[in-house]
């Protein structure tokens, strides 16, 4: 029974595919999984938009949407209908082909990332040996779409937004990759399925998730920072800073193309949270061994939604960074720390199984964080800026 609930989607797929002639089965199996991904994540997107608007409202002592349906739950539907019926405007001097392709490329590239994420036991579209590499390759191509949008619009705000986006995404891509590299060093595999399996062990009922090790905790924090920047979420929402750049790279988009950008942004959040979950939070494994009977896919989606809530919480709390703070923070603080974290991960591997490695690794990381944070604040790399006026 427990086994069936855990594997329900896999069994369902096998049953449907079994109805078809043998020649069609491989193609049908893949198509079915693709359809499932395309159906599930946009639904989650609608839910996340509703949660975001309600939670942000509450954080600002408002009620949030409450007119469409009970508690405003049908608000995303209303928004969807609205964006579908709106006029699709293409500026006269825009490069029409690229302008059209940009949102498509974004959504396609983001959807590709889901192919390698293990969303439950045996629930991955492709078990690629270099799954992590594939994910990052796809993630990096979203930058292309952002720049396509900004460049083809022929609008100075779009272009400024796109330039900011590319600078930001390239800077934080390095951090994202290096913080994940520590996991690869410990697991010895780029396959996301193997990474989850490596974390799916329990000692005294507690899981061996990588976030519960010094290097994993530091790696997770840096991964979360880089993921926030990578998905252009507040406080790293400079590319679409509405108070500075109208809407950044998607200024010239309206109607359904705008909705596609919106969708792409949230899907990127889901996929990057899914990867973070897989790398550091044990993927689909249960948080306690006695909860092992709960289907694995529930854990995966619960962890992803929890990450989304944290994203929303950050957005409700933090003001937008300045461009120089953003760059200084990436190159002068987070990047050196990720490099140090690689070293610490190596130490962790070779210091043996005793308590010494916990002390040594934690001490190095905490010390580095404290010293570099203090030094960065003193040199005003990321603190508030002191203004000097002409005398």
């Amino acid at each position, binding site marked *: 029974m427990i086994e069936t609930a855990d594997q329900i989607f896999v069994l369902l797929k096998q049953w449907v595919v079994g109805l078809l002639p043998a020649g069609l089965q491989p193609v049908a199996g893949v198509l079915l999984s693709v359809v499932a991904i395309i159906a599930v994540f946009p639904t989650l997107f609608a839910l996340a938009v509703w949660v975001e608007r309600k939670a942000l409202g509450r954080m*600002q002592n*408002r009620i949030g949407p409450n007119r469409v349906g009970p508690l405003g739950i049908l608000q995303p539907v209303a928004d969807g209908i609205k964006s579908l019926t709106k006029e699709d405007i293409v500026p006269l001097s825009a490069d029409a082909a690229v302008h059209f392709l940009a949102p498509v490329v974004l959504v396609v590239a983001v959807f590709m990332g889901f192919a390698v994420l293990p969303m439950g036991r045996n629930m991955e579209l492709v078990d690629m040996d270099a799954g992590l590499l594939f994910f990052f390759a796809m993630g990096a191509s979203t930058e292309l779409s952002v720049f396509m949008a900004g460049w083809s619009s022929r609008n100075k705000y779009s272009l400024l937004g796109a330039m900011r986006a590319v600078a930001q995404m390239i800077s934080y891509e390095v951090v994202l990759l290096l913080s994940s590299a520590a996991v690869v060093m410990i697991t010895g595999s780029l396959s996301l399925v193997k990474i989850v399996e490596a974390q799916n062990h329990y000692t005294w009922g507690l899981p061996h998730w990588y976030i519960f090790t010094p290097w994993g905790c530091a790696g997770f924090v840096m991964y979360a920072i880089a993921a926030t920047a990578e998905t252009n979420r507040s406080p790293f929402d400079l590319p679409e800073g509405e108070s500075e750049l109208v809407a950044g790279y998607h200024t010239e988009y309206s109607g359904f193309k705008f909705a596609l950008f919106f969708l792409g942004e949230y899907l990127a959040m889901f996929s990057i949270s899914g990867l973070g979950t897989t790398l550091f939070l044990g993927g689909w494994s249960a948080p306690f061994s006695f909860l092992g009977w709960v289907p694995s896919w529930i854990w995966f989606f619960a962890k992803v939604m929890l990450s989304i809530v944290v994203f929303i919480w950050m957005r409700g709390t933090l003001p937008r960074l300045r461009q120089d703070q953003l760059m200084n923070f990436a190159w002068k603080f987070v990047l050196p720390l990720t490099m140090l974290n690689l070293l610490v991960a190596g130490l962790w591997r070779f210091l043996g199984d005793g308590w010494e490695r916990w002390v040594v690794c934690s001490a190095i990381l905490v010390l580095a964080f404290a010293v570099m944070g203090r030094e960065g604040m003193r040199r005003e790399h990321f603190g508030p800026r002191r203004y000097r006026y002409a005398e």
Partner: protein
Amino acid sequence: MLGEGILKGLAETARNFAGSFVSAERLTTVQYPEQRIAPIEATRDFPFLVYDGADWEAGMRCVACQICEKECPPQCIYIEKSKDKKPDFVGKPQFYPARFDIDISVCMSCQICVEVCPFEAIKMDTEFELSTEDRFGGLLFDRKELAKPNEHYHKIHPTEAAEVDARLAEEKAKADAKAKAAAEAAAAKAAAPAKTAAVGDAAAKPAEGASRA
């Protein structure tokens, strides 16, 4: 240590989030069409024309001097002066607006028309639910739509309206006193020849004429 501020901020927003479910007084917004907050006294949006008494056409204070039309920065007022005259609140014959239109889609609510009006005839309203399906005709108010009784003014801006009423009463009293003085002077003048003519009753007639002039 770096990051302390972020944690403090996160705690604050979490407190707001939880608190907004527990205590209703935290919520700064009201559910607008059902719940309404009474506008504060200084609220203003678009101008209206004040009239005294029951009949809006007879009681309109506006004398079509067109100062507001000339001063209006976005030029949203259009006035046509009447050919004939009618008495104002003091009793003096004045022109009145045969047409008085304000295009509230152009109006920027600056209140300059109110500042320049020497007759306390134009004031700022607080009515804001003016949305209409006809964006040209529906937003162009003629004098009938603009005319509102003095009681309405008292209701929306009580302090200001009391001041205005006091000022108008004072003006009227002054005008009355002047008329009375003029009447007395005329009476005295009339009395001088009356001594010879000895017709005391005739003094009332020129006095009436003086008060109108």
